[in-house]
Structures are given as structure tokens and as C-alpha cells.
């Protein structure tokens, strides 16, 4: 008898969900809201600032070409290579800046931790799929672009279940 009761309970629980709100988040139309603009690091305090770890952003006016990020990444995925840029900055005599291969990068953010000059941060951008491997290599110029990311969807919990509102 208890087993019959349990069956009925299961059926009830299952059919109850026919009226509960759907949890699905409709990606191409909606986008998720993240905390802040992305993961950043404060070398003075030695701690990061919470944020999503998406594609990197490089501030050309801060990067000194010190290669610390590349050294940090070398032990991880060797995603960063230093390339010449035809820009001239006072603080960047060698005119080299990081170029990131997102086919290798694992978005760990340790290169951000390593950069002492507030030049390399991460952004909320994650839409990186491409048809070829070459499209995944981002030159310093591409890295400088601040992605336009507008996400405004969050998990909302109310009496009829959790949804994305």
C-alpha cells in the first residue's frame, strides 16, 4: 500500500511541475547578468575583485611589455605570446604586447594576477566560437576592444519556482 501511495505521490509531484514556471534561460535572446565587468586584480592588495572570467582585455596605455603575464601563463597553457605592435608608448620600449590564443587559454585568470600594471583584465565576453583556429588568436589590437555585453537576466525565485526574469 505504501508503494501505491508513493506512486501517487510521484505522479502528483511530476504533474505539479506542469504548472510550475519553466527554468529555461533563452540564450540567444536573453543574456545573463554578471557581477561587475569581469575579473580584475589589485596587485597592491594582492587579491582579486570578483567578476566573470571571460575574454581578456588589454589596456595598451598601461602595458609595459614586461612579459610577466606570458611567464605566468607558460606554466599553464602557453596561451600568451608576446608580439610586436606598431605603437609607441613611453613605458613600452620594446613595443611588445601579449597576444592570446583562446584555443589554448583556460580562463584561469592567473595572468591577470601576474600583471603588476593594471593592464590585463578579464571581461564578461564569452561568445568566442569560430570556424577556424586562426580566428581564435586575438592580437593585442583585438584584445584592446572593450566588448559590449549587455546582460540583464538573473535567477528569480518566487512561489512558483525559479525562473530567469
Amino acid at each position: 500500500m505504501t508503494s501505491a501511495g508513493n506512486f501517487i505521490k510521484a505522479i502528483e509531484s511530476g504533474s505539479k511541475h506542469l504548472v510550475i514556471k519553466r527554468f529555461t534561460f533563452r540564450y540567444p535572446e536573453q543574456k545573463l547578468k554578471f557581477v561587475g565587468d569581469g575579473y580584475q586584480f589589485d596587485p597592491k592588495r594582492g587579491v582579486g575583485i570578483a567578476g566573470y572570467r571571460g575574454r581578456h582585455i588589454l589596456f595598451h596605455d598601461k602595458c609595459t611589455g614586461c612579459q610577466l603575464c606570458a611567464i605566468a601563463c607558460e606554466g599553464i597553457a602557453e596561451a600568451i605570446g608576446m608580439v610586436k605592435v606598431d605603437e609607441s608608448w613611453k613605458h613600452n620600449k620594446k613595443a611588445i604586447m601579449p597576444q592570446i590564443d583562446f584555443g589554448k587559454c583556460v580562463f584561469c585568470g592567473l595572468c591577470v594576477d601576474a600583471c603588476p600594471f593594471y593592464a590585463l583584465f578579464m571581461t564578461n565576453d564569452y561568445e568566442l566560437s569560430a570556424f577556424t583556429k586562426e580566428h581564435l588568436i586575438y592580437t593585442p589590437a583585438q584584445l584592446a576592444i572593450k566588448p559590449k555585453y549587455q546582460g540583464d537576466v538573473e535567477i528569480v525565485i518566487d512561489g512558483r519556482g525559479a525562473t530567469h526574469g
Partner: protein
Amino acid sequence: MTSLEDKFEESKKLGLQIAKESEDDRLMTLSVGPQHPGSGHFRFIIKVDGDYIVYCDPDPGYVHRGEEKMCEYRNVIQNIPHLERPVIHDSNNITYSYSLAVEELVGIEVPRRAQYIRALASELNRQVYTLYWLAIYGIFLGHSTMFMWPTGDRELLIDLLEVLTGARVTHAYNIPGGVRNDMPDGFKERCLRQVRYLQKRFKEYEDIFYNMPLFRQRTEGVAVLSKEDAIKLGVTGSVVRASGIPYDIRKAEPYDIYNEIDFKVQYMKTGDCFARSYVPFLDMKESCHIIEQLLDKMPQSGEVRAKLQPNPKGPPGEAYRRVESGRGALGYYVVSDGTPKPYRVKISVGSFRNMLALPYLLVGQKMGDMPATYWSLNYWPVEADR
């Protein structure tokens, strides 16, 4: 009382006897995996006599990536990202014990707030793991709703962890000396809201899965691992707790702030598939209470990461530290020779230990019990292969 070896020998004999008895074509060799919806990254070879499994031989290694070797070539901190890859959905725990071991070797004191945040992240992450595990258990038993619900509710916790650490699953959050960033504002409320919602959902899981008579029929009394056998095989985590041994590293050897937390070790005595599948669920319920306590007791402000040089190194020595992960004790044996790179890192993982029980439990079972038994061992092949 037959011991484990006897049982195994007996079943083996049964298999051989059938083979000898001029009916060798009764036996059929099946390869379960690697491309098999019932195995994932893993393969085991079974021989079946009709509906009964008479032989089983695990063949792991499809995801063997040489983590231990690679650790010897990387700095202590650079090791973090790839050490968490074996269990990306439990990554805070797998880096936790590594951090503990390195801290012991280097001699770092972790700030108190960092300890709390670590424990919080670890509890959340264990639930993320267990929900995923539960989802796969559901689909293995042909219960597609039970795949969907935990996968969906897991997203609530992933959402929390994403806010906390900045990545969905590969957090790289624990680091020798603390955690990488502080909790963002308003995290506590969000966390409590979503965890409470989850607690409500657990009741529905029981309705639709654990109390479902068909599920009970399929798991109760199936593939029983007795207490003696569990000890002998050295299984760990929920498997050993399901066999009646209340062994939890959080209780047995409390690390960080776990001795300030009040919680019970959940265990069952039957040792069958049902117990093995129910104990993680009980753990999850308990874990929700732990999270509430942690959020309560946490110092409101303070350092979250000890200051240390970029490439920490300590004196030569070795350390073996364990934490309780989703799959049981997860230990790191780290040997240092005084350089920034570890000399040897050995990961002692629950999956690898639990895999040993697989052939013992499968032999003599019916074929329908295969997925139930296999996945109830709380086995994650990627972690076992490392």
C-alpha cells in the same frame, strides 16, 4: 560467512563452470564504453551469461592525462588550474587539499575569513558535484526527469559559485594562502535564498526518485557491499558510509574551521545500491545546514589571502593532506625538494579507490543492475585516470 574473496572466486567459478560445461557460447563478451551511454569516459569489459554478469574487468585510462607528471614541471601556483581539471564540477575541493598540503609545506597561515570562504565554496561545490552525480544516476536508470531536475537545480549553485569565483565550474579559487578574491556584496542573501529553494526541491526529489517503488526495487538489496568488504577494499566517501562506517574526513580529521561547525555524519547500514545512492543525498541535505552555519559565523571582513611571494617555496619535506570531497577522501601527497616546483605530487582520489569495488560488486548481478551499481560507486572516471 563468505568473505569477499570467496564470493568473487565463487562467482568466477560459476562463470568458468558454465563455460566449461560445453556451452561456452552462452557467454558473451560485451565492452561497455567508451562510447556507451552507460559508461562515459570509461570502459569495462563484461561477460554475460544470459542476463547475469559473470566477469568484469575495468579498463580505465581513457582520460589519463598525466597530471602527476605535469605537476613536476610547474610552479606551485601554476599547478592549480590543471589540478582541478580531473573533477571540474568539484574543483574547489580538489584544490582545497592541494592548498592545504602546500600550506603545510611552505608554512603559511591562512586568514580566518579565507578559511570560512573556502569551506563555503567547498560545501557549495560538493553539492554541485552530488547533484550532477544524481542527475547521471537518474539517466542511467532511465529516469530522464531525474536527469533534468538536478542539472537544473545545480545551476542555482553554479550561479552562486560563478558570482563568487568568476567561472562556472573551473574556479581556480583556492590558492595556497587563501582564496583569490573576496565575496562580492550581497552574496550572503543570494546564497541563502538559493540554498533554501534547493532545500525545498529536495523533497520533490524524494517523491519522484528515492521513494519511487520502481527505483527502490531496482536498487534495494542490489550489489551489497558489506562492512568488512568495504574496509578490505578501502573504498571511501559515500560508498563506505553506506556500508555502515561513519567515516568523514570533515569529522575524523577536521581541517580549517570544520571543528567549529556542528553537523552529523550521514551513514546507512545496508550497503546496497540504495544506500550508496541515498547517502550523498543525505549529505547534501546536511551540507545545506553547514552552509547556513558558515554564512552565520563568518567574520564580516578581513584578509582573504595571505601575503606570499609569487613562487612560494618551502623547505624540503613532504605532506599528505586530505579533505572530504564529493567522492570521499581526497588526499594530496606532495614532496618538495626546496624548489618552487614540487618534486612529486600524488593525488589519492576517491574514484580510483572506489573503482576497485566495481568488479566485486558486478559479478553475479543482472545486466540491468550494471548502470545502477557502476554509478552508485560514486566514480568519476576522469578523476580516477588523472
